[in-house]
């Protein structure tokens, strides 16, 4: 395997092999490099910069298995001009791609531990490669619990995989939404309310959390209260990433650059800057 590009600032052309509609505002792209024959080396949790030609570039999480089995799968929520342009792509279209960039979930350091995976909204996307990595070596881990929260039932992604994850890999899955109409038979409440509903040993648990910062803040607080150690809680941060290689400074977070030093951090590395409005 090799890195796709020698110049990290030059986008490489990628072909959309498959456009996958996930929800009303979220979609996945299965991408293949146009000029590179090898598969791309990436680690769970990393991201790429996707370039919609003539519109702009955005950081997007890799949401497929690592190493990639077919194409490079990226899941995108439509929230602005660039992602709206990406939402218009069709099979066979071309996008620009730089990367992969950033830090990864430290899967190999989690062996023999219970694992709590907490995802909010599209935060499940960068966690899915981590889950696949855990499944690949399932016997090396204790309990695995996925706690997933979203705004409403129509905003949930990857739901068609949950049953397989539970039955084949023996993980606990608790899905909850912030609000629902009475047709919804599942749980309603914020994702932190699911923590007491799963089995794990807090003293021997590693947590991976991805979601809006405020969701992560409350999740960390709950896990700490139960006895999960700060240095075993990993969070993924988001800021305005532009260059993705730590040059431009747009994504500075205290002394760190999210693109280069993150996006995944051990909680105790960033806790002093977490929730400070000026940062």
């Amino acid at each position: 395997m090799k890195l796709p590009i020698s110049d990290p600032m030059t986008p490489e052309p990628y072909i959309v092999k498959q456009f996958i509609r996930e929800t009303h505002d979220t979609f996945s792209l299965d991408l293949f490099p146009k000029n590179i024959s090898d598969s791309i080396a990436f680690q769970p949790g990393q991201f790429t910069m996707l370039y919609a030609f003539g519109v702009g570039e955005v950081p997007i999480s890799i949401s497929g298995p690592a190493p990639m089995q077919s194409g490079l799968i990226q899941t995108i929520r439509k929230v602005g001009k660039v992602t709206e342009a990406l939402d218009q792509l069709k099979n066979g279209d071309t996008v620009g791609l730089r990367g992969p960039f950033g830090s990864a979930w430290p899967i190999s350091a989690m062996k023999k531990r219970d694992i709590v995976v907490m995802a909010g909204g599209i935060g499940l996307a960068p966690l899915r490669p981590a889950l696949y990595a855990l499944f690949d070596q399932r016997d090396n881990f204790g309990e695995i619990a996925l706690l997933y929260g979203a705004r409403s039932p129509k905003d949930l992604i990857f739901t068609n995989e949950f049953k397989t994850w539970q039955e084949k890999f023996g993980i606990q899955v608790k899905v909850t939404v912030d609000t629902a109409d009475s047709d919804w038979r599942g749980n309603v409440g914020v994702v932190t309310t699911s923590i007491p509903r799963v089995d794990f040993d807090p003293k021997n648990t590693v947590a991976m959390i991805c979601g809006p910062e405020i969701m992560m803040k409350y999740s960390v607080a709950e896990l700490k209260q139960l006895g999960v150690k700060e240095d075993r809680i990993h969070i993924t941060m988001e800021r305005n990433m532009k260059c993705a290689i730590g040059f431009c400074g747009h994504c500075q977070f205290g002394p760190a650059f999210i693109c280069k030093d993150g996006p995944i951090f051990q909680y105790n590395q960033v806790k002093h800057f977490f929730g400070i409005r000026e940062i």
Partner: protein
Amino acid sequence: MKSLESILANHPFFENLESKYMALVTGCASNVRFEAGQFIHRQNDEANSFYLIRQGKVALEVCPPGKKPVTVQTVTDGEILGWAWLVPPYLCQFDAQAVELTRAIVLDGKCLRTKCGEDHTLGYELLSRLLPIIGKSMEATRMQLLDVYGNND
């Protein structure tokens, strides 16, 4: 078959409650069962019951006029349903509907209120257990109000 007292003692809400108080509480308790779709109480009903969910799921719903009911919270195994029995004017704030077959212990709220009035230590014990739950619920409500997963506009 487990006695009511041992079921109560094993419910997280009453964990480590002194045995003399457990006996008092048990005097106000009975087993109940709700089928899926059955209403446990309606908004503005007198709040004279306090439920400990043993198994199942209950949705707390509000009904905006002319619209479908909205579920604002679900409670499930090991959790509690209702604290309006302890706070004047003792009226239910939501509709509570069983989402699936639900088994619970119901405690007579009036009976509990009387016992808490007679024995303030029991009252303090119950409030000490209820307040963190109410606090978490308020925190959750704030997070829901923030709509953290919505668009940032």
